[in-house]
């Protein structure tokens, strides 16, 4: 937006919102002390996982402008590696670290060739990649993965709650830090016009790879937390396209290319999903599908834009 840079320092809005969101997360940390209900804590875990996944997707699509339709691949790899190491006795945090690194390395392997593709071709290329991984994992590991009985006996939901809370906070801080940095400015320049950014001396490939690295690292960590949280699931489940869809829907419904958008989106999405799932299984996807189409057509800034309009602020982002 012309003039926007004069009104606000780049990333100033993100830093302000990060403070608000992190303070809110901080007060949520008291939740397990107050409420001892499992359903509330489970809701918290799902919410924090959604925030992490959505922010990791937002960094790539909302800031660097690269729509990655294969995000589930990185979530799945994180889950796969973390689960394997953890079940074999590795402590969970290093296991998650390794999982995230594997996801990132895979991200580089595919990113270098895939970034030759622009816009929509990048999107369908990554979609194909995630499907390749999902089918391969489904074929080679067809059996359900269940935790050993000893682990189930000592299962602590509170621990999962805090782990995912820290992860979500990390994701929020990463996006805010990136948005406020010079690199974040470069990413937005690429999003708006890649050729113009290149001409102004912004290395597109370097910036895109950096966005991809941070994004896959966070997605891998989220996958690891999923593997730590879920007692039993099929190994191909975290590779399913619905994880990409979740991240995409949450980000767009909330507002892509903003910090608080995906957080609000996740709250709205998870709440509605859980609420609707009690009555009608899968109806939430119908509602979100329609809502998503409406947002792309009528309200490209997401829910955040509505609030912005109400408060009469100029729009800063144009994903």
């Amino acid at each position, binding site marked *: 937006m012309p003039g926007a840079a004069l009104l606000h320092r780049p990333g100033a809005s993100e830093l302000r919102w990060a403070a608000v969101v992190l303070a809110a997360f901080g007060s949520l940390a008291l939740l397990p002390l107050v409420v001892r209900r499992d359903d509330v804590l489970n809701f918290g875990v799902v919410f924090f996982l959604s925030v992490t996944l959505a922010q990791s997707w937002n960094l790539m699509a909302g800031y660097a402008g690269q729509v990655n339709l294969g995000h589930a691949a990185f979530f799945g790899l994180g889950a796969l590696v973390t689960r394997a190491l953890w079940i074999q006795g590795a402590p969970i945090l290093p296991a998650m670290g390794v999982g995230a690194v594997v996801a990132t390395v895979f991200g580089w392997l595919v990113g270098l060739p895939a970034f030759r593709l622009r816009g*929509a071709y990048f999107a369908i290329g990554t979609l194909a990649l995630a499907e390749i991984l999902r089918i391969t994992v489904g074929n080679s590991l067809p059996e359900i993965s269940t935790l050993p009985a000893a682990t189930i006996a000592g299962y602590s939901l509170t621990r999962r709650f805090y782990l995912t809370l820290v992860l979500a906070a990390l994701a929020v801080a990463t996006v805010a830090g990136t948005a406020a940095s010079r690199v974040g400015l470069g990413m937005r320049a690429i999003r708006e016009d890649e050729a113009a950014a290149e001409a102004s001396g912004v290395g597109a490939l370097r910036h895109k790879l950096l966005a991809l690295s941070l994004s896959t690292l966070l997605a891998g960590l989220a996958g690891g937390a999923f593997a730590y949280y879920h007692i039993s699931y099929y190994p191909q489940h975290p590779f399913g396209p619905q994880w990409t869809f979740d991240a995409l829907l949450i980000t767009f419904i909330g507002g892509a290319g903003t910090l608080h958008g995906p957080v609000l989106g996740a709250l709205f999405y998870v709440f509605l999903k859980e609420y609707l799932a009690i009555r009608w299984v899968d109806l939430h996807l119908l509602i979100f599908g329609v809502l998503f189409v409406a947002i792309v057509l009528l309200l490209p800034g997401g829910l955040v834009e509505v609030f912005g309009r109400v408060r009469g602020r100029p729009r800063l982002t144009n994903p």
Partner: protein
Amino acid sequence: MRLLAQQLLLGILVGGLYGLAAAGLSLIFGVLRVLNVAHGELLMLGGYASFWLFALLGVDPFVSLLGVLPGLFLLGLCLYWLLFGFVVRAHEEVRIKNSLLIGFGLALALHALAVRLWTADERSITTAYAGEVMTVGGLKLPLVRLASLALALVLIVGLHFFLRRGRWGQAIRATAEDWEAALLMGIDVRRAYLLAFAIGTALAGAAGSLVSVGYSINPSIGLEWTLKALIVIVLAGMGSIVGTFFGGLVLGAAEALSAVVVGGPYREVVGLVIFFCVLVARPEGLFTSRGAFR
């Protein structure tokens, strides 16, 4: 050897449907520069239309094509008016990205709707003649699938001649080649868009009908078929409907071969790997060829 030939034959038979699905998507992409990733879901709807016409009213699936084609054509018109018509106002890059997102939301909604209305069960049309098999030189040819391939070919040839000779067909080709020039020549570009989109949707529906006869459908087949259509387009390139159809046959044959070589479960992977490699090797040249539909 016999096994290999048999697999190849079955691969080519299903390949005809890949080609038909891809032709619709290719027409839409080539003319509107809009990538409708809900194409597979539209195919799924066509399949269900035929299935219910058969299950409730006993309409023969090959006859019900006569209803499915105009039905999906109408649906295509509605989708264009409601959704994609807004997207084509943007310039090309935004157009593709937004259409991708809209198609994606549409796919999600249609999938959820189908699960809700018709459950997630696998459905297939079993007619009285479903089991008929023709044996040629020791190879078995399921009659229904053979008829499907023939019908797909008829539709493709029909479309080819429509684009070649028909007044609106020529307008569509002109629009695909250069919409600005077409506009200057007095062609109603918006209407060419509308028509191409509706025809592409109708073709998806027809492919779905044929899938529900020889094979089976469920609400989740959409993504798989969209990817198949994309793979075929990448293999065959844009610009020729008949070429796209043959691309479908090639993909079917390649999948069958790979099923024999690397094992059945991985047949999907082979197509996707080819797809990704071709995409990366020719990142610009694939979809951007400004060829008219010859």
